[in-house]
C-alpha cells in the first residue's frame, strides 16, 4: 500500500484533522492514498462524513495504540 502523504493530527481537535486532510488531498493525484493519525474521538464520524460529502473513499478506519488511523483514497 503506497501512502502518498501522512497527516499527523494527534493532539488536534475538531475541525483541524478534517482541515488538514482536505489540504493534503488537494496536493495528491487521483487514486492516491492519504493516511491520517488523530487522537480526537470525533474524527471517526467526521472522516465518514468528510468522505461521503466529498466523494473520496474511506479505505480504512482503525484504532491503533491509542490513536485513530484512517486511510483515504482520493477520487
Amino acid at each position, binding site marked *: 500500500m503506497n501512502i502518498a502523504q501522512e497527516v499527523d493530527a494527534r493532539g488536534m481537535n475538531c475541525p483541524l484533522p*478534517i*482541515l488538514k486532510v482536505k489540504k493534503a488531498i488537494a496536493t495528491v493525484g487521483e487514486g492516491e492514498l492519504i493516511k491520517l493519525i488523530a487522537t480526537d474521538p470525533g474524527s471517526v464520524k467526521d472522516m465518514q462524513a468528510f468522505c461521503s460529502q466529498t466523494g473520496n473513499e474511506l479505505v480504512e478506519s482503525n484504532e491503533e495504540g491509542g490513536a485513530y488511523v484512517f486511510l483515504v483514497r482520493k477520487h
Partner: protein
Amino acid sequence: MSVASEVMTALPDHLQPDAMDAWLEKKLDEKLAEREAAKTPSLAIIATKGTLDMAYPPFILGSTATALGWDVSIFFTFYGLELLKKDLDLEVSPLGNPAMPMKMPFGPEWFKAINWKIPNAVQGIVPGFEVFATGMMKKTLRNKGVASIAELREMTIEAGGRLVACQMTVDLFGYDMDDFIPEVKDWIGAASFLPTAAKSDVSLFI
C-alpha cells in the same frame, strides 16, 4: 362522440392521460434526484458576536463546510466585525454567563475537574476578572489542541470561504478600514446579503 374523445381513444396506450401523468411523476422524481445529487450545498452565516467564545462557531462551521466542499459565505456585522481585525484581540467574559464552565487549566486532574461557581457580584467587582477569564480560556483551548481563531480564519479564507462585512457597522462604531484584514471580499448591507442567504441550504444567525 366529440372530436376530443375521438382523438383520445385513437391515441396509443402510453400517450393516454393517465399513463402520461404516471410517466411525468416518475421523470420528475428522477430529474429532481439528479439535480439534488449534483448540487453543491451552501452555507450562509450572519456573525454578530465578537467575543472569543462566540468567534468559534462561525469559523469552525465555515472552515468545516469548506472542507466538505460546500460554498460558504459569512456576513460579519455589529460585534462580529471584531473577528475581521488584523490584530485579533478577542476576550471572553463570564459575567452573566452561568453556562460557562470555570475550570482551571492547570494542576492535577482532580483539581482541573472542579467547576468554580463564582458569583456575579464577585466577577463584577474584582478588577481584571475578564483578563483572568480570557487568559484561562485561551490556556484551556491551547491545552486541548483547539485551533486559534486566526488559524481557523486563515483556513476558511484559503479554502474559498467568502467573508463579507457590514459597511453600516463601520460607520456606526467609527472603525478604521485599515484595522481589518484585506481578504474581506466586500463591504455590504443587509439587502445584499439576504439574497445569498435565501439561496443557501443552511442559513445561520450566530
